[in-house]
């Protein structure tokens, strides 16, 4: 019979011991991470692009001595996570790419009021009217097209035309992305429910085969000519250009007609959680995001790698894109954009979600 010296028994035993040891080490490492010295530290739930958040956090840590742990994930998943965590949420601050997740958390009563001085840094129309989150940066919706596949003269100039049968098989969209539903909400605001529904059905038919799960894919597919044009926010094109190099860019961007409902500003914002035990430090982080220093990081693509528009403290972008002040978006407010639930219901009905 087997003795404890048996090589196989020894191997199983060794494996178990090794696994236990590793588990112990990992646990220790985890505890060591969260323990910390006397220095103040906060946790940031980050739905923004990782590099952008990291650069902002590094500057904030250097300026204040408060350390920030970053937890990055899809912004929707983070909003769900905070809702599930409830009063025990480890998060102090949440930073998202779009306003709907923040509006949804606000509606669930999970956010604290942002300090008035912080809110005053950002134009009121880019922050929550209830004052529970502050706008940090902005983007604008555009068409990205491949001139080798479709000439600029044949592009739609109004978002309504996206449903025209002439664009069948030519349109790419990412309806699951948070950037698409504000356009639907805006359309809804301009034309009403029945028109929106039939428009969405037209889009569903036109985009068949080119419905992607994210904007990067839309930009990529248009750039390589797999599809004629798509709807994205302007900075996806700029980021793609920075990443793959101007020589690999075979696509261009085009704007909708001034004031068209497809011409929408999306706002990225931040909020402090009501459950946070570090209210003061968390508010400091928000204040930093909209401060001149924070906004200048966003304004400089070599630092933020984001090509988003700074919107606070009077800072303007350093990227070679259309200046923010020259944009002519459809006049819809943040509150009217809301959490997008009506748009989502209609998109479901049209079969886009």
């Amino acid at each position, binding site marked *: 019979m087997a003795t404890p010296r048996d090589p196989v028994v020894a191997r199983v035993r060794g*494996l178990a011991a090794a696994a236990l040891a590793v588990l112990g080490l990992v646990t220790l*490492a985890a505890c060591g991470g969260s323990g910390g010295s006397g220095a103040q530290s906060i946790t940031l739930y980050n739905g923004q692009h990782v590099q952008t958040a990291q650069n902002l956090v590094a500057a904030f840590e250097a300026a204040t001595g408060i350390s920030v742990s970053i937890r990055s994930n899809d912004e929707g998943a983070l909003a769900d996570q905070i809702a599930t965590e409830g009063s025990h949420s480890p998060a102090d601050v949440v930073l998202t790419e779009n306003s709907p997740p923040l509006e949804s958390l606000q509606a669930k009563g999970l956010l604290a009021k942002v300090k008035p001085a912080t809110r005053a840094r950002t134009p009121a129309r880019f922050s929550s009217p209830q004052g529970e989150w502050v706008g940090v940066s902005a983007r604008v919706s555009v068409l990205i097209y491949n001139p080798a596949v479709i000439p600029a003269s044949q592009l739609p100039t109004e978002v309504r035309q996206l449903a025209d049968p002439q664009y069948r098989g030519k349109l790419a969209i990412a309806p699951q992305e*948070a950037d698409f539903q504000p356009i639907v909400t805006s359309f809804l605001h301009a034309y009403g429910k029945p028109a929106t529904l039939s428009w969405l059905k037209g889009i569903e038919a036109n985009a068949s085969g080119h419905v992607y799960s994210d904007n990067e894919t839309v930009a990529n597919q248009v750039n390589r000519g797999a599809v004629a044009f798509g709807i994205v926010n302007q900075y996806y094109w700029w980021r793609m250009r920075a990443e793959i190099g101007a020589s690999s860019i075979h696509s261009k961007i085009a704007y909708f007609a001034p004031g068209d409902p497809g011409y929408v500003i999306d706002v990225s914002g931040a909020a402090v959680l009501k459950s946070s035990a570090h209210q003061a430090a968390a508010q400091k982080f928000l204040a930093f995001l909209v401060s001149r220093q924070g906004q200048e990081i966003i304004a400089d693509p070599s630092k933020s790698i984001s090509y988003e528009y700074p919107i606070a403290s009077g800072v303007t972008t350093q990227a070679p894109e259309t200046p923010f002040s020259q944009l002519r978006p459809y006049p819809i407010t943040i509150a009217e954009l809301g959490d997008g639930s009506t748009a989502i219901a209609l998109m479901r009905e049209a079969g886009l979600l």
Partner: protein
Amino acid sequence: MTTSQTLRRPGPSSPGQAPAARPAVRARRTRLPVALTAAGFAVAAVLMLPLVFLLIEARGAGAAAVTDLIFRRLTADLLWNTVRLTVVVTALCAVIGTAAAWCVERTNLPGRRVWAVLVVVPLAIPDFVVSFGWASLWTWVQGFRGAVVVMTLAVYPLVYLPVAASLRAADPGQEEVARSLGVGRVRTFVRVTLAQARGAILGGCLLVALVLLAEYGAFEILGYQTFTTEIFTEFSVSFSVPAACALSLVLVALSLLVLAGEGMLRGGGRVSRSGPLAPRQMPPQRLGRATLPVLAGFGLLTALALGVPVGASIYWMAERSSHAILGVSLASAALHTAGYAASAGALATLAALPIALLAIRYTGRVRYFLERSTYLVLAMPGVVIAFALAYFSERYGSGLLYQSAPLLVICYSIMFFPLALVGVKASLARAPVSLDEMARSLGQRRLAVLWRVTLRLAGPGLVAAFCLVFLSVVTELTATLLLIPTGVQTLATQFWAYEQNLAYGQAAPFALVMIAVAALPSYVLGRFFDRSAHPDG
């Protein structure tokens, strides 16, 4: 891996087999040991937590909202997408996995030792890396076609492994008898060989089908919509956990169908074999003129399943990328990944022991449903299981262990439990009950018997179970993002962060290290299943 099923059914058709085989494989109904049963129920109860969470949340959403969500137009499309993909990929995996296993195990294929490892390694490549590799090379790799190609190449080893093991362990005498009676090569293969491997093929197909139901990363990149991608949409667009949970219940229903189907197909089979302690070396079938085409086939399979993703990773790395993410080194991410994967592998294997012992050694309805119920988690998206643990930790533990390494390891262990179970069952099936009885009659205590006899025989198989879980954890992303300790990165989360930003050049090294970290367990797996019928070496 699922040779247990073939082992448990001694049939009437081979009267001359070794007498030791019968008592060794007979299952009994009597005397369920209390401790074992309690442990089994405890494990099964933990594995039911995600389902309980789904029911609680779906109930919270309200009946009207749930019916609205489920009975809408898109559901029909999702159902069609999910079902046709599952059927086609499972069938392809069954063919490729079985053919590859037969060639490696039963023929004089040149270099079969090397192939035995190479065909397993694709299991170690994350599906999102595979699909990325393909999608970045060819535009046509998208939608249904893309999903079929990518998923088939990513998961066929789940069929290959159990089939290879069962072909090795199966009684070669029957093939010899069939051939000597003048039955042709092809008919022998169909009537005898396939029949012998039937349980293993079905078991592998079951895993493939369940894994497909829960797949997300690959389909996200390929733009293919299934129930699981839709569940992620619910999470990310409508901030609605209840809605996502209601949809997940559809997945649970689908996986019940898959389980029932597999159970029915399996039920009709009658397979016999000689005793597990008397494996016989058989002369390999000569491939003859087929050698070159078969070699070409293996070369093609390896090139597609291994070459494309690895090649694409190296290509991206060569393309210089400009932006760095601060602070996380490749080494730290690799160390954490390996640590979590090893812990989860050990925990899942340990937890699978009582369920596997009950499944192998005893019969009965309760035992049967206990074991089958544990397969359900494999079809649930990782993010759902992670949310379930977050929910219970917050609701009943004041956030206890939340976002700590132990809870993450528990989450992984739940997610990949069925893989461990399959491995453990396969190995325990090789440890005959008669030896236990002999040991007990010699005065050994029950625990001592378990330790000294059963585990000794099952040891290498336990290592295989460990490796299967290890591989899966290394490539896991969505649950990791939710439950990993804040500030810690794994190879997968870091790859994701770069990939999200189109920084493929920087993502690529993480993909390659992921493959490297997973290569060793793949090698061990390949060797184990290759050797499994040769206890003497």
